[in-house]
Protein backbone atom coordinates (compact mmCIF):
# COMPACT_ATOMS: atom_id res chain seq x y z
CA UNK A 1 0.00 0.00 0.00
CA UNK A 2 1.55 3.26 -1.10
CA UNK A 3 0.54 6.29 0.91
CA UNK A 4 0.75 9.82 -0.36
CA UNK A 5 4.07 11.37 0.68
CA UNK A 6 2.40 13.96 2.84
CA UNK A 7 0.60 11.30 4.83
CA UNK A 8 3.86 9.45 5.37
CA UNK A 9 5.46 12.62 6.58
CA UNK A 10 2.63 13.25 9.02
CA UNK A 11 2.76 9.73 10.39
CA UNK A 12 6.49 10.02 10.89
CA UNK A 13 6.09 13.25 12.76
CA UNK A 14 3.40 11.78 15.00
CA UNK A 15 5.67 8.89 15.83
CA UNK A 16 8.55 11.15 16.78
CA UNK A 17 6.25 13.37 18.81
CA UNK A 18 5.01 10.30 20.61
CA UNK A 19 8.52 9.32 21.58
CA UNK A 20 9.24 12.82 22.76
CA UNK A 21 6.14 12.74 24.91
CA UNK A 22 7.25 9.51 26.52
CA UNK A 23 10.49 11.17 27.44
CA UNK A 24 8.63 14.17 28.77
CA UNK A 25 6.38 12.03 30.90
CA UNK A 26 9.39 10.48 32.57
CA UNK A 27 10.96 13.82 33.27
CA UNK A 28 7.65 15.18 34.51
CA UNK A 29 7.18 12.26 36.78
CA UNK A 30 10.66 12.56 38.20
CA UNK A 31 10.16 16.21 38.86
CA UNK A 32 6.87 15.74 40.61
CA UNK A 33 8.49 12.97 42.60
CA UNK A 34 11.07 15.43 43.77
CA UNK A 35 8.56 17.98 44.93
CA UNK A 36 8.98 18.72 48.60
CA UNK A 37 6.22 18.64 51.18
CA UNK A 38 4.91 15.19 51.62
CA UNK A 39 1.45 14.82 50.13
CA UNK A 40 0.46 12.65 52.98
CA UNK A 41 1.23 15.07 55.76
CA UNK A 42 -0.28 17.99 53.96
CA UNK A 43 -3.55 16.15 53.67
CA UNK A 44 -3.55 14.54 57.06
CA UNK A 45 -1.49 16.80 59.29
CA UNK A 46 -2.24 15.12 62.60
CA UNK A 47 -1.24 11.58 62.10
CA UNK A 48 1.40 9.53 63.81
CA UNK A 49 4.55 8.46 61.97
CA UNK A 50 3.38 4.82 61.89
CA UNK A 51 0.05 5.76 60.37
CA UNK A 52 1.87 7.91 57.86
CA UNK A 53 4.08 5.02 56.85
CA UNK A 54 1.06 2.79 56.50
CA UNK A 55 -0.73 5.24 54.26
CA UNK A 56 2.38 5.75 52.19
CA UNK A 57 2.70 2.02 51.75
CA UNK A 58 -0.90 1.80 50.65
CA UNK A 59 -0.44 4.59 48.15
CA UNK A 60 2.67 2.91 46.89
CA UNK A 61 4.82 5.88 47.80
CA UNK A 62 7.53 3.83 49.39
CA UNK A 63 8.50 2.07 46.17
CA UNK A 64 11.62 3.14 44.31
CA UNK A 65 11.23 5.69 41.49
CA UNK A 66 11.32 3.37 38.48
CA UNK A 67 8.65 1.13 39.98
CA UNK A 68 6.41 4.05 40.72
CA UNK A 69 6.95 5.32 37.21
CA UNK A 70 6.07 1.95 35.71
CA UNK A 71 2.87 1.83 37.70
CA UNK A 72 2.11 5.35 36.59
CA UNK A 73 2.55 4.46 32.93
CA UNK A 74 0.28 1.47 33.36
CA UNK A 75 -2.38 3.67 34.82
CA UNK A 76 -1.99 6.13 31.97
CA UNK A 77 -2.69 3.42 29.46
CA UNK A 78 -5.71 2.40 31.43
CA UNK A 79 -6.89 5.95 31.08
CA UNK A 80 -6.41 6.77 34.71
CA UNK A 81 -4.26 9.71 35.54
CA UNK A 82 -4.30 9.40 39.24
CA UNK A 83 -6.14 11.14 41.99
CA UNK A 84 -5.69 14.67 43.16
CA UNK A 85 -5.03 14.96 46.84
CA UNK A 86 -6.50 18.42 46.91
CA UNK A 87 -9.85 17.77 45.38
CA UNK A 88 -10.06 14.12 46.12
CA UNK A 89 -11.27 13.46 42.60
CA UNK A 90 -9.78 11.54 39.76
CA UNK A 91 -7.63 13.95 37.81
CA UNK A 92 -9.61 13.08 34.71
CA UNK A 93 -12.81 14.29 36.26
CA UNK A 94 -11.18 17.43 37.46
CA UNK A 95 -9.96 18.17 33.99
CA UNK A 96 -13.22 17.47 32.23
CA UNK A 97 -14.69 20.84 33.02
CA UNK A 98 -11.46 22.72 33.34
CA UNK A 99 -10.07 22.06 29.91
CA UNK A 100 -12.99 23.64 28.05
CA UNK A 101 -12.78 26.59 30.40
CA UNK A 102 -9.18 27.21 29.47
CA UNK A 103 -9.87 26.48 25.82
CA UNK A 104 -12.54 29.14 25.83
CA UNK A 105 -10.06 31.68 27.14
CA UNK A 106 -7.40 30.45 24.75
CA UNK A 107 -9.73 30.76 21.80
CA UNK A 108 -10.68 34.33 22.53
CA UNK A 109 -7.20 35.30 23.56
CA UNK A 110 -5.50 33.87 20.51
CA UNK A 111 -8.30 35.18 18.35
CA UNK A 112 -7.76 38.67 19.69
CA UNK A 113 -4.04 38.32 19.16
CA UNK A 114 -4.52 37.33 15.54
CA UNK A 115 -7.25 39.80 14.68
CA UNK A 116 -5.38 42.71 16.19
CA UNK A 117 -1.84 41.52 15.65
CA UNK A 118 -1.83 40.73 11.96
CA UNK A 119 -3.30 44.00 10.67
CA UNK A 120 -0.99 45.89 13.02
CA UNK A 121 1.99 44.07 11.55
CA UNK A 122 0.86 44.63 7.98
CA UNK A 123 0.35 48.35 8.49
CA UNK A 124 3.75 48.55 10.15
CA UNK A 125 5.46 46.79 7.29
CA UNK A 126 3.82 48.86 4.59
CA UNK A 127 4.73 52.14 6.31
CA UNK A 128 8.03 50.91 7.62
CA UNK A 129 9.96 53.44 9.72
CA UNK A 130 7.37 56.10 9.18
CA UNK A 131 4.81 57.40 11.64
CA UNK A 132 2.28 54.56 11.54
CA UNK A 133 4.98 51.99 11.94
CA UNK A 134 6.30 53.63 15.07
CA UNK A 135 2.80 54.06 16.42
CA UNK A 136 1.94 50.41 15.87
CA UNK A 137 5.20 49.24 17.35
CA UNK A 138 4.64 51.34 20.40
CA UNK A 139 1.21 49.84 20.92
CA UNK A 140 2.38 46.31 20.46
CA UNK A 141 5.44 46.66 22.69
CA UNK A 142 3.25 48.33 25.26
CA UNK A 143 0.71 45.55 25.27
CA UNK A 144 3.43 42.98 25.66
CA UNK A 145 5.06 44.79 28.53
CA UNK A 146 1.99 45.06 30.69
CA UNK A 147 2.09 42.25 33.22
CA UNK A 148 -1.07 40.20 32.90
CA UNK A 149 -1.65 39.88 36.58
CA UNK A 150 -1.37 43.59 37.13
CA UNK A 151 -3.65 44.76 34.35
CA UNK A 152 -6.17 42.19 35.47
CA UNK A 153 -6.15 43.66 38.95
CA UNK A 154 -6.35 47.18 37.57
CA UNK A 155 -9.32 46.27 35.39
CA UNK A 156 -11.09 44.55 38.27
CA UNK A 157 -10.57 47.52 40.49
CA UNK A 158 -11.85 50.12 38.07
CA UNK A 159 -14.45 48.23 36.10
CA UNK A 160 -15.92 46.29 38.97
CA UNK A 161 -15.20 47.99 42.23
CA UNK A 162 -15.28 51.59 41.17
CA UNK A 163 -17.54 51.89 38.18
CA UNK A 164 -19.61 48.72 38.46
CA UNK A 165 -19.47 47.99 34.77
CA UNK A 166 -18.04 44.53 34.94
CA UNK A 167 -19.50 41.62 36.86
CA UNK A 168 -17.83 40.16 39.92
CA UNK A 169 -14.88 38.07 38.89
CA UNK A 170 -16.01 34.79 40.35
CA UNK A 171 -15.44 32.58 37.38
CA UNK A 172 -17.35 31.60 34.34
CA UNK A 173 -20.82 32.49 35.44
CA UNK A 174 -22.26 34.86 37.99
CA UNK A 175 -23.61 33.39 41.18
CA UNK A 176 -27.20 33.88 40.27
CA UNK A 177 -26.97 31.78 37.14
CA UNK A 178 -27.02 28.04 36.85
CA UNK A 179 -24.72 26.21 34.54
CA UNK A 180 -26.44 25.12 31.35
CA UNK A 181 -26.39 21.52 30.25
CA UNK A 182 -23.09 20.54 28.85
CA UNK A 183 -23.10 20.28 25.08
CA UNK A 184 -19.64 21.42 24.16
CA UNK A 185 -18.38 22.62 27.48
CA UNK A 186 -18.15 26.14 26.15
CA UNK A 187 -20.66 28.03 28.22
CA UNK A 188 -21.38 30.77 25.74
CA UNK A 189 -21.88 28.31 22.91
CA UNK A 190 -23.93 25.93 25.02
CA UNK A 191 -26.23 28.65 26.24
CA UNK A 192 -26.82 29.87 22.73
CA UNK A 193 -27.45 26.36 21.49
CA UNK A 194 -30.00 25.84 24.23
CA UNK A 195 -31.65 29.15 23.51
CA UNK A 196 -30.78 30.50 26.90
CA UNK A 197 -29.88 34.05 25.92
CA UNK A 198 -29.59 35.49 29.39
CA UNK A 199 -27.09 32.94 30.47
CA UNK A 200 -25.18 33.37 27.25
CA UNK A 201 -24.92 37.08 27.85
CA UNK A 202 -23.88 36.58 31.44
CA UNK A 203 -21.21 34.10 30.43
CA UNK A 204 -19.98 36.51 27.79
CA UNK A 205 -19.73 39.28 30.34
CA UNK A 206 -17.69 37.09 32.64
CA UNK A 207 -15.48 36.15 29.75
CA UNK A 208 -14.76 39.70 28.66
CA UNK A 209 -12.07 40.79 31.09
CA UNK A 210 -10.05 37.58 31.35
CA UNK A 211 -10.14 37.06 27.59
CA UNK A 212 -8.97 40.61 27.06
CA UNK A 213 -6.03 40.17 29.40
CA UNK A 214 -5.13 36.89 27.70
CA UNK A 215 -5.29 38.52 24.31
CA UNK A 216 -3.09 41.42 25.33
CA UNK A 217 -0.05 39.25 25.62
CA UNK A 218 -0.74 37.53 22.32
CA UNK A 219 -0.80 40.65 20.16
CA UNK A 220 2.82 41.71 20.29
CA UNK A 221 4.63 38.57 19.15
CA UNK A 222 2.20 38.12 16.28
CA UNK A 223 2.43 41.76 15.26
CA UNK A 224 6.20 41.72 15.42
CA UNK A 225 6.62 38.64 13.25
CA UNK A 226 3.98 39.82 10.80
CA UNK A 227 5.84 43.08 10.46
CA UNK A 228 9.23 41.53 9.83
CA UNK A 229 7.93 38.75 7.59
CA UNK A 230 5.86 41.18 5.55
CA UNK A 231 8.79 43.57 5.23
CA UNK A 232 10.95 40.81 3.84
CA UNK A 233 8.19 39.51 1.65
CA UNK A 234 7.56 42.96 0.18
CA UNK A 235 11.16 43.10 -1.05
CA UNK A 236 10.83 39.94 -3.07
CA UNK A 237 11.05 40.08 -6.84
CA UNK A 238 7.64 38.63 -7.46
CA UNK A 239 6.03 41.52 -5.64
CA UNK A 240 7.72 43.98 -7.95
CA UNK A 241 6.79 41.89 -10.95
CA UNK A 242 3.21 41.78 -9.71
CA UNK A 243 3.17 45.55 -9.66
CA UNK A 244 4.85 45.63 -13.05
CA UNK A 245 2.01 43.55 -14.44
CA UNK A 246 -0.39 46.23 -13.38
CA UNK A 247 -1.95 44.38 -10.46
CA UNK A 248 -3.54 46.78 -7.98
CA UNK A 249 -1.41 47.51 -4.93
CA UNK A 250 -3.90 46.10 -2.47
CA UNK A 251 -3.94 42.75 -4.19
CA UNK A 252 -0.17 42.66 -4.31
CA UNK A 253 0.25 43.49 -0.64
CA UNK A 254 -2.63 41.59 0.92
CA UNK A 255 -2.60 38.73 -1.53
CA UNK A 256 0.94 37.98 -2.59
CA UNK A 257 3.13 39.56 0.05
CA UNK A 258 0.91 38.34 2.85
CA UNK A 259 0.92 34.83 1.45
CA UNK A 260 4.68 34.99 1.47
CA UNK A 261 4.75 35.91 5.14
CA UNK A 262 2.16 33.34 6.14
CA UNK A 263 4.69 30.65 6.94
CA UNK A 264 6.40 32.80 9.54
CA UNK A 265 3.10 33.97 10.97
CA UNK A 266 1.75 30.47 11.36
CA UNK A 267 5.01 29.47 13.04
CA UNK A 268 4.73 32.17 15.64
CA UNK A 269 1.10 31.31 16.29
CA UNK A 270 2.26 27.80 16.97
CA UNK A 271 4.79 29.08 19.46
CA UNK A 272 2.12 31.19 21.11
CA UNK A 273 0.37 28.03 22.24
CA UNK A 274 2.94 27.70 24.96
CA UNK A 275 2.27 31.25 25.96
CA UNK A 276 -1.42 30.47 26.28
CA UNK A 277 -0.77 27.98 29.02
CA UNK A 278 1.47 30.39 30.84
CA UNK A 279 -1.05 33.16 30.40
CA UNK A 280 -3.89 31.02 31.60
CA UNK A 281 -2.05 30.24 34.82
CA UNK A 282 -2.01 33.92 35.67
CA UNK A 283 -5.30 35.08 34.22
CA UNK A 284 -7.25 32.26 35.79
CA UNK A 285 -5.72 32.98 39.17
CA UNK A 286 -6.61 36.65 38.98
CA UNK A 287 -10.16 36.12 37.78
CA UNK A 288 -10.89 32.93 39.69
CA UNK A 289 -11.48 31.16 36.42
CA UNK A 290 -11.83 27.40 36.94
CA UNK A 291 -9.45 26.27 34.26
CA UNK A 292 -6.37 24.20 33.63
CA UNK A 293 -3.97 26.97 34.54
CA UNK A 294 -5.27 27.57 38.01
CA UNK A 295 -5.52 23.87 38.59
CA UNK A 296 -1.90 23.44 37.67
CA UNK A 297 -0.76 26.32 39.85
CA UNK A 298 -2.61 24.98 42.87
CA UNK A 299 -1.25 21.51 42.27
CA UNK A 300 2.31 22.77 41.95
CA UNK A 301 2.19 24.91 45.05
CA UNK A 302 0.77 22.06 47.10
CA UNK A 303 2.95 19.34 45.63
CA UNK A 304 -0.05 17.41 44.40
CA UNK A 305 1.75 14.88 42.27
CA UNK A 306 -0.89 13.38 40.05
CA UNK A 307 -2.29 16.66 38.71
CA UNK A 308 1.21 18.06 38.22
CA UNK A 309 2.21 15.05 36.13
CA UNK A 310 -0.94 15.09 34.14
CA UNK A 311 -0.86 18.80 33.54
CA UNK A 312 2.73 18.72 32.34
CA UNK A 313 1.88 15.84 30.05
CA UNK A 314 -1.18 17.63 28.81
CA UNK A 315 0.69 20.83 28.15
CA UNK A 316 3.50 18.98 26.39
CA UNK A 317 0.96 17.19 24.24
CA UNK A 318 -0.76 20.44 23.43
CA UNK A 319 2.52 22.05 22.43
CA UNK A 320 3.56 19.04 20.35
CA UNK A 321 0.18 18.98 18.67
CA UNK A 322 0.40 22.67 17.86
CA UNK A 323 3.87 22.22 16.37
CA UNK A 324 2.65 19.30 14.32
CA UNK A 325 -0.31 21.25 12.98
CA UNK A 326 1.99 24.12 12.10
CA UNK A 327 4.33 21.82 10.19
CA UNK A 328 1.44 20.27 8.32
CA UNK A 329 -0.01 23.64 7.44
CA UNK A 330 3.25 24.59 5.75
CA UNK A 331 2.52 22.05 3.06
CA UNK A 332 -0.77 23.73 2.30
CA UNK A 333 0.59 27.22 2.27
CA UNK A 334 3.74 26.88 0.22
CA UNK A 335 4.04 24.50 -2.72
CA UNK A 336 7.81 24.57 -2.41
CA UNK A 337 7.62 23.11 1.08
CA UNK A 338 5.06 20.60 -0.09
CA UNK A 339 7.57 19.25 -2.53
CA UNK A 340 10.31 19.17 0.07
CA UNK A 341 8.12 17.05 2.31
CA UNK A 342 7.34 14.73 -0.56
CA UNK A 343 10.98 14.30 -1.37
CA UNK A 344 12.05 13.46 2.16
Amino acid sequence: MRLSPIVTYILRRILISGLVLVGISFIAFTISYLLPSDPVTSRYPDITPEQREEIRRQMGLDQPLPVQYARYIQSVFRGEFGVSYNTGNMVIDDLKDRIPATLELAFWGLGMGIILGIPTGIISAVHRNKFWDNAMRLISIGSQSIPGFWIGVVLIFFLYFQWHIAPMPVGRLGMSFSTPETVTGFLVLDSILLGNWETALAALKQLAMPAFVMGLGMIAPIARITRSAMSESLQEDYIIFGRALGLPERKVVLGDAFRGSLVSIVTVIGFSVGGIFAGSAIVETVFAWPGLGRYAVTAITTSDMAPVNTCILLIATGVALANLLVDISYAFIDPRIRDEYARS
Partner: protein
Amino acid sequence: MAELVLENKKKNFQYYYVKLFAGDPLALTGVVMLVFLVIVAIFGPMMVRYDPIKTSSEILLPPSDQYWFGTDQFGRDIFSRTVTSLQLDFSIAVMGVSGAIIIGMIIGALCGYIGGLFDDIVMRLIDFIQSFPMLILAMVLVMVMGPGVRSVVVVTILINIPSYARLIRGETLSKKRLEYIDAARCSGASEARILFRHLVPNTLSPLIVQGSMNLAWAVGNVAAMSFLGVGIQPPTPDLGLMVSEGTQYLAQGCWWMSIYPGLILAITIFCFNLVGDGLQDRLDPRRARG
Protein backbone atom coordinates in the same frame (compact mmCIF):
# COMPACT_ATOMS: atom_id res chain seq x y z
CA MET B 1 47.68 50.01 5.55
CA ALA B 2 46.33 47.44 7.97
CA GLU B 3 46.46 49.94 10.82
CA LEU B 4 44.39 52.38 8.83
CA VAL B 5 41.75 49.75 8.23
CA LEU B 6 41.66 48.88 11.92
CA GLU B 7 41.38 52.54 12.88
CA ASN B 8 38.46 52.98 10.59
CA LYS B 9 36.81 49.85 11.89
CA LYS B 10 36.99 51.02 15.48
CA LYS B 11 35.66 54.45 14.65
CA ASN B 12 32.91 52.96 12.59
CA PHE B 13 31.99 50.70 15.46
CA GLN B 14 31.17 53.55 17.82
CA TYR B 15 29.70 55.73 15.13
CA TYR B 16 27.58 52.78 14.12
CA TYR B 17 25.99 52.41 17.53
CA VAL B 18 25.34 56.10 17.86
CA LYS B 19 23.69 56.22 14.45
CA LEU B 20 21.71 53.18 15.49
CA PHE B 21 19.90 55.05 18.18
CA ALA B 22 19.84 58.42 16.52
CA GLY B 23 17.31 57.33 13.94
CA ASP B 24 14.99 55.55 16.30
CA PRO B 25 13.10 57.71 18.78
CA LEU B 26 11.55 54.70 20.46
CA ALA B 27 14.80 52.99 21.30
CA LEU B 28 16.30 56.26 22.43
CA THR B 29 13.48 56.91 24.88
CA GLY B 30 13.82 53.37 26.13
CA VAL B 31 17.51 53.73 26.80
CA VAL B 32 17.12 57.01 28.62
CA MET B 33 14.37 55.70 30.87
CA LEU B 34 16.28 52.51 31.46
CA VAL B 35 19.34 54.38 32.61
CA PHE B 36 17.15 56.31 35.00
CA LEU B 37 15.63 53.14 36.40
CA VAL B 38 19.00 51.50 36.83
CA ILE B 39 20.24 54.47 38.81
CA VAL B 40 17.19 54.27 41.00
CA ALA B 41 17.68 50.56 41.45
CA ILE B 42 21.31 50.92 42.43
CA PHE B 43 21.13 53.94 44.71
CA GLY B 44 17.50 54.00 45.65
CA PRO B 45 17.43 51.52 48.53
CA MET B 46 20.18 53.45 50.28
CA MET B 47 18.20 56.64 50.09
CA VAL B 48 14.66 55.67 50.92
CA ARG B 49 13.12 57.13 53.97
CA TYR B 50 11.58 54.07 55.50
CA ASP B 51 12.70 50.56 56.20
CA PRO B 52 10.94 48.38 53.66
CA ILE B 53 10.46 45.50 56.04
CA LYS B 54 9.74 47.15 59.34
CA THR B 55 6.10 47.24 60.21
CA SER B 56 4.39 50.23 61.71
CA SER B 57 0.99 51.23 62.89
CA GLU B 58 0.30 53.55 59.95
CA ILE B 59 -1.55 50.95 57.99
CA LEU B 60 -3.43 51.34 54.73
CA LEU B 61 -2.73 55.00 54.23
CA PRO B 62 -3.35 56.46 50.77
CA PRO B 63 -0.52 58.20 48.89
CA SER B 64 0.58 61.48 50.45
CA ASP B 65 3.59 63.71 50.78
CA GLN B 66 4.87 61.53 53.53
CA TYR B 67 4.24 58.18 51.91
CA TRP B 68 4.51 58.69 48.16
CA PHE B 69 2.88 55.43 47.27
CA GLY B 70 0.90 54.96 50.45
CA THR B 71 1.32 52.19 53.00
CA ASP B 72 0.29 48.56 53.07
CA GLN B 73 -1.51 46.43 55.60
CA PHE B 74 1.53 46.31 57.85
CA GLY B 75 2.20 50.00 57.72
CA ARG B 76 5.18 49.63 55.41
CA ASP B 77 5.92 52.40 52.94
CA ILE B 78 5.09 51.09 49.51
CA PHE B 79 7.47 53.40 47.72
CA SER B 80 10.43 52.16 49.71
CA ARG B 81 9.36 48.61 49.11
CA THR B 82 8.98 49.28 45.41
CA VAL B 83 12.46 50.73 45.09
CA THR B 84 14.00 47.91 47.11
CA SER B 85 12.13 45.36 45.06
CA LEU B 86 13.36 47.03 41.89
CA GLN B 87 16.91 46.42 43.02
CA LEU B 88 16.18 42.82 43.85
CA ASP B 89 14.33 42.12 40.64
CA PHE B 90 17.03 43.78 38.55
CA SER B 91 19.75 41.78 40.27
CA ILE B 92 17.92 38.53 39.75
CA ALA B 93 17.22 39.33 36.12
CA VAL B 94 20.79 40.41 35.40
CA MET B 95 22.32 37.44 37.18
CA GLY B 96 19.91 35.12 35.45
CA VAL B 97 20.50 36.47 31.99
CA SER B 98 24.28 36.77 32.31
CA GLY B 99 24.47 33.24 33.64
CA ALA B 100 22.36 32.12 30.72
CA ILE B 101 24.58 33.96 28.27
CA ILE B 102 27.76 32.38 29.58
CA ILE B 103 26.44 28.85 29.83
CA GLY B 104 24.42 29.22 26.65
CA MET B 105 27.46 30.39 24.73
CA ILE B 106 29.49 27.44 25.90
CA ILE B 107 26.78 24.97 25.02
CA GLY B 108 26.14 26.62 21.69
CA ALA B 109 29.81 26.70 20.79
CA LEU B 110 30.15 23.04 21.73
CA CYS B 111 27.15 22.14 19.63
CA GLY B 112 28.41 24.01 16.63
CA TYR B 113 31.89 22.69 17.01
CA ILE B 114 31.20 19.04 17.78
CA GLY B 115 28.12 18.68 15.66
CA GLY B 116 26.74 15.26 14.93
CA LEU B 117 24.52 13.37 17.33
CA PHE B 118 25.46 15.53 20.28
CA ASP B 119 24.31 18.59 18.40
CA ASP B 120 21.10 16.87 17.29
CA ILE B 121 20.05 15.76 20.74
CA VAL B 122 20.88 19.02 22.45
CA MET B 123 19.08 21.03 19.81
CA ARG B 124 15.94 18.92 20.12
CA LEU B 125 16.03 19.40 23.86
CA ILE B 126 16.42 23.12 23.39
CA ASP B 127 13.62 23.18 20.85
CA PHE B 128 11.32 21.60 23.33
CA ILE B 129 12.28 23.79 26.26
CA GLN B 130 11.68 26.84 24.15
CA SER B 131 8.22 25.87 23.07
CA PHE B 132 7.10 24.77 26.51
CA PRO B 133 5.40 27.52 28.52
CA MET B 134 8.22 29.03 30.44
CA LEU B 135 6.19 30.11 33.39
CA ILE B 136 4.97 26.61 34.13
CA LEU B 137 8.45 25.21 33.75
CA ALA B 138 9.79 27.89 36.03
CA MET B 139 7.18 27.25 38.67
CA VAL B 140 7.73 23.52 38.74
CA LEU B 141 11.48 23.86 38.97
CA VAL B 142 11.29 26.45 41.71
CA MET B 143 9.01 24.24 43.73
CA VAL B 144 11.40 21.36 43.39
CA MET B 145 14.26 23.46 44.60
CA GLY B 146 12.30 25.24 47.23
CA PRO B 147 11.00 28.77 46.75
CA GLY B 148 13.27 31.70 47.33
CA VAL B 149 15.63 34.02 45.55
CA ARG B 150 18.32 31.46 44.81
CA SER B 151 15.92 29.09 43.04
CA VAL B 152 14.48 31.92 41.03
CA VAL B 153 17.93 32.91 39.80
CA VAL B 154 18.83 29.34 38.87
CA VAL B 155 15.55 28.86 37.06
CA THR B 156 15.98 32.13 35.17
CA ILE B 157 19.39 30.98 34.00
CA LEU B 158 18.14 27.60 32.89
CA ILE B 159 15.18 28.92 31.00
CA ASN B 160 17.16 31.55 29.13
CA ILE B 161 19.99 29.28 28.05
CA PRO B 162 18.27 28.05 24.87
CA SER B 163 18.14 31.43 23.14
CA TYR B 164 21.84 32.07 23.53
CA ALA B 165 22.87 28.52 22.83
CA ARG B 166 21.08 28.72 19.54
CA LEU B 167 22.59 32.09 18.68
CA ILE B 168 26.16 31.05 19.31
CA ARG B 169 25.65 27.73 17.63
CA GLY B 170 24.55 29.49 14.47
CA GLU B 171 27.58 31.75 14.52
CA THR B 172 29.93 28.87 15.25
CA LEU B 173 28.52 26.84 12.40
CA SER B 174 28.98 29.60 9.88
CA LYS B 175 32.43 30.51 11.15
CA LYS B 176 33.63 26.97 11.48
CA ARG B 177 34.00 26.57 7.80
CA LEU B 178 35.96 29.76 7.29
CA GLU B 179 38.12 29.93 10.37
CA TYR B 180 38.85 26.26 10.49
CA ILE B 181 40.63 26.22 7.22
CA ASP B 182 42.40 29.54 7.44
CA ALA B 183 43.36 29.47 11.08
CA ALA B 184 44.68 25.95 11.15
CA ARG B 185 47.05 26.76 8.34
CA CYS B 186 48.08 30.35 8.73
CA SER B 187 48.34 31.69 12.19
CA GLY B 188 49.20 28.75 14.32
CA ALA B 189 47.27 30.26 17.21
CA SER B 190 44.84 27.91 18.89
CA GLU B 191 41.57 27.57 17.07
CA ALA B 192 39.69 28.28 20.24
CA ARG B 193 41.26 31.70 20.51
CA ILE B 194 40.47 32.61 16.92
CA LEU B 195 36.93 31.33 17.19
CA PHE B 196 36.48 33.41 20.32
CA ARG B 197 37.95 36.56 18.87
CA HIS B 198 35.75 36.45 15.83
CA LEU B 199 32.67 35.16 17.51
CA VAL B 200 32.26 37.92 20.05
CA PRO B 201 32.11 41.03 17.84
CA ASN B 202 29.80 39.35 15.38
CA THR B 203 27.34 38.15 17.93
CA LEU B 204 27.46 41.29 20.04
CA SER B 205 24.50 42.92 18.35
CA PRO B 206 22.06 40.01 18.35
CA LEU B 207 23.26 39.25 21.85
CA ILE B 208 22.28 42.68 23.08
CA VAL B 209 18.90 42.43 21.41
CA GLN B 210 18.24 39.00 22.84
CA GLY B 211 19.58 40.03 26.22
CA SER B 212 17.28 43.01 26.34
CA MET B 213 14.24 40.94 25.54
CA ASN B 214 15.22 38.28 28.03
CA LEU B 215 15.76 40.85 30.76
CA ALA B 216 12.28 42.14 30.09
CA TRP B 217 10.90 38.65 30.36
CA ALA B 218 12.98 37.77 33.42
CA VAL B 219 11.79 40.75 35.42
CA GLY B 220 8.20 40.02 34.48
CA ASN B 221 8.61 36.36 35.24
CA VAL B 222 10.01 36.90 38.72
CA ALA B 223 7.09 39.14 39.53
CA ALA B 224 4.57 36.71 38.03
CA MET B 225 5.94 33.80 40.01
CA SER B 226 5.96 35.78 43.19
CA PHE B 227 2.41 36.82 42.47
CA LEU B 228 1.42 33.18 42.30
CA GLY B 229 3.32 32.48 45.48
CA VAL B 230 6.04 30.43 43.89
CA GLY B 231 8.85 32.93 43.79
CA ILE B 232 10.09 35.41 46.31
CA GLN B 233 8.59 34.91 49.70
CA PRO B 234 7.33 37.56 52.13
CA PRO B 235 8.46 39.67 53.90
CA THR B 236 11.06 40.34 51.16
CA PRO B 237 9.43 42.95 48.99
CA ASP B 238 8.68 42.05 45.41
CA LEU B 239 6.55 43.86 42.91
CA GLY B 240 4.49 40.80 42.07
CA LEU B 241 4.08 39.91 45.70
CA MET B 242 2.88 43.40 46.50
CA VAL B 243 0.28 43.27 43.78
CA SER B 244 -0.92 39.94 45.08
CA GLU B 245 -1.12 41.11 48.67
CA GLY B 246 -2.91 44.22 47.58
CA THR B 247 -5.77 42.38 45.92
CA GLN B 248 -7.29 41.54 49.28
CA TYR B 249 -7.70 45.19 50.06
CA LEU B 250 -9.17 46.29 46.78
CA ALA B 251 -12.68 45.98 48.09
CA GLN B 252 -11.77 48.51 50.75
CA GLY B 253 -10.63 50.88 48.09
CA CYS B 254 -6.89 50.62 48.83
CA TRP B 255 -5.87 50.72 45.19
CA TRP B 256 -2.34 52.03 45.76
CA MET B 257 -1.09 48.75 47.15
CA SER B 258 -1.56 46.86 43.90
CA ILE B 259 -1.51 49.55 41.29
CA TYR B 260 1.73 51.43 42.01
CA PRO B 261 4.12 48.48 42.20
CA GLY B 262 2.59 46.99 39.06
CA LEU B 263 2.89 50.30 37.27
CA ILE B 264 6.59 50.50 38.01
CA LEU B 265 6.97 46.92 36.87
CA ALA B 266 5.14 47.64 33.62
CA ILE B 267 7.33 50.68 32.95
CA THR B 268 10.51 48.70 33.60
CA ILE B 269 9.53 45.89 31.28
CA PHE B 270 8.43 48.43 28.73
CA CYS B 271 11.85 50.10 28.69
CA PHE B 272 13.69 46.82 28.22
CA ASN B 273 11.37 45.90 25.40
CA LEU B 274 11.69 49.30 23.73
CA VAL B 275 15.45 49.02 23.66
CA GLY B 276 15.40 45.43 22.47
CA ASP B 277 12.82 45.99 19.80
CA GLY B 278 14.37 49.21 18.57
CA LEU B 279 17.78 47.59 18.28
CA GLN B 280 16.37 44.54 16.60
CA ASP B 281 14.74 46.66 13.99
CA ARG B 282 17.94 48.48 13.13
CA LEU B 283 20.09 45.40 13.12
CA ASP B 284 17.84 43.32 10.91
CA PRO B 285 19.44 42.87 7.51
CA ARG B 286 17.77 45.77 5.81
CA ARG B 287 17.94 45.22 2.16
CA ALA B 288 17.15 48.34 0.15
CA ARG B 289 16.24 47.33 -3.31
CA GLY B 290 18.28 49.13 -5.92
